[in-house]
C-alpha cells in the first residue's frame, strides 16, 4: 500500500528530534485526528540552516515529515514556504488517497514554523 520511499522514510526517518534553541516552531494536528507534527527550524541569512521534526501518527505522517525536512533543509524561507503537499507526496512517489492529508499537514507544519520565526523576528 505504501511506496518504497514512504517505507524508507518511515523506517529511517531523517532529521528527527527537536532543535533546542529553535528560531521557529510549527505545531499542527491534534490527538483526536491522530496526527501531530512539530517542526523546529534554525534560520541563518534567511535560509533554513537546520530543521528537525517530531511526529505522532501513522507511517505516512512520519514519512511526510521526514521528507519535508529533507526538501526544506538549505532552502531560503521564500522557497521553503512554497513547498506544497504535492511536492512532498511526489517526492515520496505518491501516497494512498486516504493518507493524502498527511502531506498537507507536513507543509502546513513547515509554514507555521517559518511564520513563527518571522513573527518573532518582527518583535
Amino acid at each position, binding site marked *: 500500500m505504501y511506496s518504497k520511499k514512504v517505507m524508507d522514510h518511515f523506517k529511517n526517518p531523517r532529521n528527527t528530534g527537536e532543535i533546542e534553541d529553535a528560531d521557529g516552531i510549527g505545531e499542527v494536528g491534534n*490527538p483526536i485526528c491522530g496526527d501531530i507534527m512539530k517542526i523546529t527550524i534554525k534560520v541563518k541569512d534567511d535560509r533554513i540552516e537546520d530543521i528537525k521534526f517530531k511526529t505522532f501518527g501513522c507511517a505516512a505522517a512520519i514519512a511526510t515529515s521526514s521528507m519535508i525536512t529533507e526538501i526544506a533543509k538549505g532552502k531560503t524561507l521564500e522557497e521553503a514556504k512554497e513547498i506544497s503537499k504535492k511536492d512532498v507526496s511526489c517526492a515520496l512517489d505518491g501516497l494512498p488517497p486516504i493518507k493524502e492529508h498527511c502531506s498537507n499537514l507536513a507543509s502546513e507544519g513547515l509554514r507555521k514554523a517559518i511564520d513563527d520565526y518571522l513573527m518573532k523576528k518582527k518583535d
Partner: protein
Amino acid sequence: MTDRRTIYLDNSATTQVHPEVIDTIQPYLSEKYGNPSSIYHKGREAKEAVEDARKKVADLINAEPEEIIFTGSGTEGNNMALKGIAFANKNRGKHIITTKIEHKSILNSAGWLERNGFDVTYLNVDENGTIDIEQLKKEIRSDTILVSVMFANNEVGTIQPIEEIKDILKNKNIYLHTDAVQTAGKFDLDVKELGIDLLTLSGHKMHATKGIGALYIKKGTKIEPFLHGGGQERNLRSGTENVPEIVGMGKAAEIAKKDLEKNRIHLKKLEKKLKEDIFRKIPELILNGHPEKRLPGNLNISFKYIEGESVVLMLDEKDICVSTGSACTSNSLKPSYVLTAMKKDPVFMHGSIRFSIGAFNTEEDIDTITKTLPEIIKSLRAISPLYNKD
C-alpha cells in the same frame, strides 16, 4: 506446521486452515464433485458429506443438525439473523436492540433496517466494553422483536453477559441472537443452556476456509430467507451447497470440539505470558477490554504517545503480523468505534494494538515478539511530540 518465518498473531482476523481440514476438503474438489440435490450415487455422496458436516457443526454448539444453515460468511449469517427476523416478525413489532460495539455486519444491517422502517436501539458499553444490562431492561418495549449481542468482541475480547440477557428476555417473546464468530473453539457454546435463538459462526475464524459460515436457527424461529431459488438449506438459503467448504467447516468444528479444553488452556497460557512480558518490559500502556472476562488469546493494548499503524508496520518488517483494532476497519482514519464507545482517551485510542493468539502459536513466538516490541515502541516514542521523556 506453520511457516516459521512469519509469526502470525492476528487470529481474530483469520486463522490458518488446519491441515486435517485441507485433507478433508481435497476429495470434494476432485472426484467427489456431485450436487447434493441429485438422487444418484454421486449426489447422495455429496449430500451425506454435507449432512455429516451439519451434524458436526451442530454438535459444537449443542444444537440439532436441522437447526444449522450453512452460509457464505459470518457477515451473511449476521445479515440473515437481523434482516430475516425483522422481516418475518414485523407485524408483531419493529424494534430491535443491539450494541454500539458489534461487528460492522450487524451495525450496517441494523442501519439498513432503520432506513427501511425499523427502530434500532444501540446499547452503551462501560469502560471495559461490557454492555449496560440496566439500559437493556429499560429499552425493552412491547414491540421489541430481537436482541442481538455479540458473545465476545472481536477487537477488545470482552465477553458479554449472555446468560443475564437470556434471563431478562425470559417469557418476553423476543428473539436472542449472538454473533459468536470469535468464540467458536474457545468457549463451550451450548445454545440450549444459553437460551439462544440464533447464533452466527464463521469458518475461517476456526481453522476452516474463507467463504463458509453457519447460522444456528432454533427450531420454531420465524425467519425470512433472502436467497430464493431451489430451496436448499430447508428453504432458507437457496443455491447449490458449497460442498468442499461445508465439509471443511464440519471437520474444523469436530476438531474445535475435541480440542476445546486443550486449546483454551494453550491460548490462556500464551496470552498470560504475552501480557506479563509486555507489561514488564514496556512502560505507559493500558489493557483494553475486560481484565478477566475476555476471549482467550485476545490481548488489546494501547501504547501511549504513538500510533498503532506504525507499530504494525514496524513489526511487519520483522515478519510479525498483528493488527490495529479490527482488520475490517483498518482502512478508516477514525479511531476504533469500539474504543470510542468505551470512552478511551484519544491518545490511547490511536495507539491500540490487537494481538490475537491462535492454536498454532508457540511460546517461542511470544518470546520473539516481546524481544522485538520494546525497541519499536521506544523508537516511535522518541520521535513523538507527545512524549517528553528521554
